[in-house]
């Protein structure tokens, strides 16, 4: 039977089989890479198709598998929300799988890739299963498969200390989060069906239950904590800039692009679907943390000069922007304003899809650069646009999209978020009315700083002269990597210029979660114009902007520059100095200097200039400049926390002395206590 859920389940099974049978081909690594990544691309494509189909027709389907606990079999359910996230995950996995064919080949001869292939398939399967799960047990099993698989992927190059350290940190945070999620489900299950049976653990039972406000709050806070740890919301983000850069780039693309989105899925599922009724301040918490993550994420990103670490911090920023949309949707829902809630929710979800596309694209581009130069440090790059023209174009598309510039996709979703913000004066709460414009201004600042950051990234990596020494063997990447990046770029453009189709597609979703549709007003002026509230209030047409710029370019080019012979190339202006060296260019550190001065109090900065003597007084003195910028949160929260844990551990360690007499006393005392308890 060809129904969406069957296709989705087949794709999961295909991924599991591909992953688990990868060992059979381990003797022929080239073939293994081709077969398994083509199969995983196929599986991702099937999942995408089923997701699009589900959301389009608003289908809800269920399957109960005969495995699991005695009276809690695995429940699978594909509804509009899971279909949406399945599309997001599937689409990027499809692009990344094609990209991986070329990327993973780069490891051949250096290390066996069988482990990478196995865990890659399990990782994607785990993410699909998370969206399909309809009971707490299966959800957590899938969640753990996803976390464990990604742990092994981060550990892929495990001979480096930093990789092992990052993977360990990731595992710790993931598990602290998973415990919180487990407790949250426990609270909801216990309240919906009592503690005698497992039946309360199905999401259906939770949907039907009525929760008292205080317990609902406990469940929400636990779940939000757990999912925020996975999503990298500040201050739980510390693992993210460590783990994402050290993983292979195709894995970073998936982790940053879609794994973080499973956490967004969890937040939306728990609040809008399972708990359903909530006070406005829950939304305010989500919104505030979203704003903090957005602004802090981009500021920390600006300080980085490791390309992948910078992109990882931008994931913190974008998760923040998504949470702003979701937080606003929660606030509007609690004030019974379904239309506005729908706008904010769609803005958040649109940004979820957009971020998956452009962040996946950027990490793929970073991977291509890494593949060609074997370098992650931006200070040693430069001028790659001439060696890697295709990668440069695709990376530029990613940069424009993430900087929220029209006509690409990042702009549309941030613009919708702005529109949701600008509707806040209609809220009945005075405090909210007063503080909301501040939030909008912060979001604007975030967008502008992101643009600054990506001018820096593209300018330093691809433009100018090379700052490194290994420029000789740099070459463009092969067809599969280019194909993966090209499809992601085209998706970025399509999502940017045709937003009305996206909004029509997600109608079912917003109707089922907040009870209002957006498309009636959003596409009121035809598909060309996006008018989320009303045409006289706000409107945008990405396609006219795009075609307009293209037309202006074409016309002016034809009119003014018919004769290419008039173009001369000359040496650059060197201000009268004898010789400009590539080291005199702006680099990543100098570009971010003014921001470091303005927002310096947010970072832990160690700056040191040493003047060393020249060999002869006639020569200029030698300057040495040291700079280290670190995350303050590490010292504010994590260091005291680990110190406290160690302190407690040392105190507790006193009980364990290694003397058998003491241990016998412990057993004896325990026995007496137990007997006393029993006799009472």
């Amino acid at each position, binding site marked *: 039977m060809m129904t969406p859920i069957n296709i989705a389940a087949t794709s999961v099974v295909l991924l599991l089989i591909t992953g688990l049978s990868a060992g059979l081909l381990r003797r022929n690594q080239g073939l293994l890479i081709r077969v398994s990544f083509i199969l995983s691309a196929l599986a991702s494509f099937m999942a995408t198709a089923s997701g699009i189909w589900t959301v389009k027709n608003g289908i809800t389907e269920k399957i109960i598998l005969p495995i699991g606990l005695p009276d809690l079999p695995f429940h699978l359910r594909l509804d509009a929300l899971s279909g949406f996230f399945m599309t997001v995950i599937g689409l990027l996995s499809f692009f990344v799988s094609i990209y991986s064919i070329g990327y993973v080949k780069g490891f051949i001869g250096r290390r066996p890739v069988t482990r990478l292939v196995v865990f890659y398939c399990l990782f994607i399967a785990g993410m699909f299963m998370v969206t399909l799960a309809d009971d707490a047990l299966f959800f957590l099993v899938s969640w753990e498969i996803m976390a464990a698989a990604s742990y092994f992927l981060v550990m892929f190059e495990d001979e480096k200390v930093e990789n092992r350290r990052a993977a360990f940190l990731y595992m710790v945070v993931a598990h602290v989060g998973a415990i919180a999620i487990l407790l949250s489900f426990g609270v909801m299950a216990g309240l919906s069906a009592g503690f005698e049976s497992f039946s309360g653990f199905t999401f259906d039972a939770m949907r039907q239950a009525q929760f008292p406000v205080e317990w609902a709050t406990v469940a929400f806070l636990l779940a939000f904590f757990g999912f925020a740890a996975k999503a990298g919301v500040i201050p739980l983000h510390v693992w993210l800039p460590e783990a994402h850069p050290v993983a292979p780039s195709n894995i970073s693309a998936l982790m940053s692009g879609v794994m973080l989105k499973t956490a967004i899925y969890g937040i939306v599922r728990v609040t809008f679907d399972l708990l359903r009724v909530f006070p406005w301040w829950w939304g305010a918490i989500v919104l505030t943390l979203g704003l903090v993550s957005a602004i802090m994420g981009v500021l920390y990103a600006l300080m980085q000069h490791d390309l992948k670490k910078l992109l990882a911090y931008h994931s913190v920023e974008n998760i923040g922007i998504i949470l702003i949309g979701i937080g606003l949707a929660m606030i509007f829902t609690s004030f019974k304003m379904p239309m506005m809630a729908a706008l904010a929710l769609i803005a958040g979800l649109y940004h979820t899809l957009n971020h998956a596309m452009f962040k996946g694209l950027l990490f793929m581009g970073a991977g291509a650069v890494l593949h060609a130069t074997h370098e992650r440090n931006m200070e040693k790059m430069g001028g790659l646009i001439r060696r890697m023209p295709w990668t440069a174009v695709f990376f530029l598309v990613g940069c424009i999209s993430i900087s929220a510039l029209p006509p690409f996709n990042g702009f549309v979703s941030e613009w919708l978020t702005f529109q949701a913000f600008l509707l806040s004066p209609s809220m009945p709460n005075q405090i909210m009315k007063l503080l909301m414009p501040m939030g909008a201004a912060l979001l604007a600042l975030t967008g502008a700083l992101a643009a600054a950051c990506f001018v820096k990234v593209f300018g330093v990596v691809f433009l100018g002269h090379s700052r490194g020494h290994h420029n000789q063997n740099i070459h463009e990447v092969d067809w599969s990597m280019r194909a993966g990046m090209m499809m992601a770029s085209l998706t970025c453009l399509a999502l940017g210029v045709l937003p009305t189709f996206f909004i029509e597609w997600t109608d079912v979703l917003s109707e089922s979660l907040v009870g209002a549709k957006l498309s009636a007003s959003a596409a009121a002026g035809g598909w060309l114009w996006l008018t989320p509230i009303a045409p006289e209030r706000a409107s945008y047409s990405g396609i006219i*902007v795009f075609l307009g710029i293209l037309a202006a370019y074409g016309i002016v080019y034809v009119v003014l520059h018919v004769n290419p012979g008039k173009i001369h190339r000359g040496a650059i202006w060197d201000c009268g100095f004898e010789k400009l060296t590539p080291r005199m260019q*702006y680099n990543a550190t100098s570009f971010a200097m003014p921001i470091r001065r303005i927002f310096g109090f947010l970072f832990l900065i160690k700056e040191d200039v040493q003047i060393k003597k020249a060999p002869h007084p006639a020569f200029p003195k030698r300057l040495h400049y040291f700079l280290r910028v670190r995350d303050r949160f590490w010292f504010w929260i994590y260091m005291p926390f680990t110190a406290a844990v160690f302190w407690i551990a040392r105190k507790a360690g006193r009980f364990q002395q290694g003397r058998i007499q003491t241990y016998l006393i412990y057993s004896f005392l325990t026995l007496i206590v137990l007997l006393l308890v029993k006799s009472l």
Partner: protein
Amino acid sequence: MEGIVVEILQVTVLIALAPLFAGWVKMVKCRLQGRTSPGLLQPYRDLKKLFSKDIVLAENASWIFRFTPYLVFGTVIIAGAVVPILSTDLPLSLTADVIVLVGLFAIARFFTALAGMDIGTAFGGDAYGDIHSIALVQIDVTYAHSRGDFKRRLYSKTVSRVCFLGLCPHCHRRERQDTGGQPGYAS
């Protein structure tokens, strides 16, 4: 049909009169600084001279450097077609609201900054100044926009027009050259 005529007329008038504005700004500035101004029509004479010249590119400039002026021109044209100047009833006025306009100028700035870094000299300095001003203007406009009443769309259009004039990349660049705003030698 009428709308299209007005639209084309507006864009043409805008392109034709923009240098006049630049000349006027320069005149006022010169007056304030006690200098003699080059005359209202100087930008036209400059343009005429510049168009008859050959194009000289730095030896390592990539297509970004070539593409940027066209993009800047394109965004300004779109902005000019959207903002009500001759008429409030333009067929393209739905293309952009004030936030989109800010975004349009931002993309022009984005590419101007990239073009600055494309050459790879110590003078990419414009790049940062440009980007920094976007940050502040964007906050400003958004804040003003979110505090204002939305029904007064025309008001916000005026706001956008102010920033349109203030942010026009051409004027800004010329201004920089006037004051000789070269950044110090980057050490």
